[in-house]
């Protein structure tokens, strides 16, 4: 039996355009999804539960719209969901990790899973900060994850822990194989698995699964931000450049000439 906690964030769909307004990023009519990397983490948690038994609890920090992401997670097979209400919580990885760690600690998971980073803020900081706060070792960017006893995984070292995670991880293109004792955090890289879609019976069942909301006052946290956003702006615009005409040979010659004389990159 494995108790698995999956950290999850609701993000903009990656096909969405981002419009910056004086009030912040325009969220009107935006499509929100589970952060794609968190989807891999969730799928892996569900597969481990199906194989080894146990439960999957999804935990998020977000505003009310994030409930939809939690319902989706419940529909694909998570058993329970917790949302830390983002109201009053500063937009800062330190404060968010503090709140999430406070919620996860009493759950005492055997395995904490999360995406490598969120495609919106892109820091990849919160899950690792949670692991540090909970004193868990970690392996990042997993491409393959196996959980078992030292004997089952063929580990020769003295069995200090009942169970270990054997992780094939992406190290900037190299693949590194590491073993670490549970409880631990493993973050998911793209390619870990192929996430499933929610089924209709799954969606029906999800409606009856427990989903609770926790607010900051219940956690007894002051939520002091360590960093603060002082400006938000769109990327510098890029004008379309020159089309190079002619035969392929002429195009290639002209392009190399322009790269030398104009762009000065050759």
């Amino acid at each position, binding site marked *: 039996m494995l108790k698995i906690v999956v950290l999850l964030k609701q993000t903009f769909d990656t096909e969405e355009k981002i419009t910056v307004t004086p009030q912040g990023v325009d969220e009107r009519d935006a499509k929100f999804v589970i952060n794609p990397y968190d989807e891999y983490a969730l799928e892996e948690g569900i597969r481990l539960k199906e194989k080894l038994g146990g439960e999957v609890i999804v935990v998020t920090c977000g505003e009310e719209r994030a409930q939809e992401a939690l319902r989706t997670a419940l529909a694909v097979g998570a058993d329970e969901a917790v949302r830390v209400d983002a109201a009053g919580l500063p937009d800062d990885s330190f404060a968010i990790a503090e709140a999430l760690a406070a919620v996860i600690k009493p759950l005492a998971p055997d395995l904490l899973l999360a995406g490598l980073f969120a495609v919106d803020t892109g820091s990849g900081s919160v899950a690792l900060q949670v692991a540090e706060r909970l004193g868990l070792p970690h392996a990042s960017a997993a491409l393959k994850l196996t959980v078992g006893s030292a004997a089952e995984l063929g580990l020769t070292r003295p069995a200090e822990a009942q169970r270990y995670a054997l992780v094939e991880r*992406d190290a900037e293109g*190299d693949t*590194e194989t590491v073993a670490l004792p549970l409880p631990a955090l493993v973050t998911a890289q793209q390619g870990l698995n192929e996430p499933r879609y929610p089924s209709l019976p799954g969606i029906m069942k999800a409606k009856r699964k427990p989903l609770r909301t926790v607010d900051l006052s219940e956690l007894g946290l002051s939520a002091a931000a360590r960093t603060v956003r002082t400006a938000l702006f769109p990327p510098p615009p890029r004008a379309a450049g020159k089309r*190079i005409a002619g035969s*392929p040979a002429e195009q290639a010659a002209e392009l*190399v000439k322009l790269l030398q004389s104009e762009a000065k990159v050759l």
Partner: protein
Amino acid sequence: MSRTILVFAERRDGQLRRVAFEALGAARRLAGEDGAVHAVLAGSGVAAEDAAALQARGADVVHIADDPSLKDYAPEAYLAALGAAMDAVRPDALLLGHTGVGRDLAPRVAAAYGAGHIADVTAIEASSGDDIGFIRPLYAGKAFERRSFAPGRPWVVTVRPNNLPPAEPADAGARGGGSAQALAYAPPPLLTAVRGVLRRASGQLDLAEADVVVSGGRGVRSAAGFEPLRALADALGGAVGASRAACDAGYCDYALQIGQTGKVVTPQLYIACGISGAIQHLAGMSQSRTIIAINKDPDAPIFGVADYGIVGDLFEVVPLLTAEVLRVRSS
């Protein structure tokens, strides 16, 4: 304003990474004229010339942790080395590269030291006053934010490779060369056992650090179709990347994927071959300095961000381009 800054001088495959010098350059600016810049070098068999290279570029003190436990990357060992340096230096800020290793260590150090973490920084606005602005992308570059630290706590900053000017020997100026010393590092009990490393990326430049990226999309049509792209990348001394469509189709490994999922790259030159330019791909490459698009479809959105566009068949154009580059380079 003078500050004490600690830089994690990352090594990979026994060599200092360029991003270590970029972090060092940023550290020198943040430290100010009267501030101090420390660097930590960790590994097994750390070369003396690495310490010398850091000193020559403005590191006042280089702290060296040379131990067999630091041969492979076990997070606990590297965290212990960084922790020892943090305790010895008590810096106002710790700077690391936003690399596989840097982004793995920084959040844990931040949490352990009650510090804030600003990640993936592409520019630093340093005025003479206390207010320092860190510019970083959101949504992989569809927007940017400026972020600052709240006062009273140490800072942890990871800087994106290829974006900040590296420290040059001139930055050391008349500072007197600096010194190197051994760090009081005791290997912690290792929880993570590194059982093997499969070097798939050897011979290939790291995408995030490459000056030139030649990238292929669905138009490449097969794994073999990447060969002409690889030849062009080799001629230019660059790396090969891919769009999500090419990865999903199985033409190449996900490790090469560029986009909002995948890697964000900012090379001097980005050559998009047979890539239509989906929004999520554009987010990952549109901050490149010069962009070339080669595509059969004249209406492909990629042309909207390209400095130079060629409407044509990549299998005709790319080999001609490679030949032309080689011809110009040899003359």
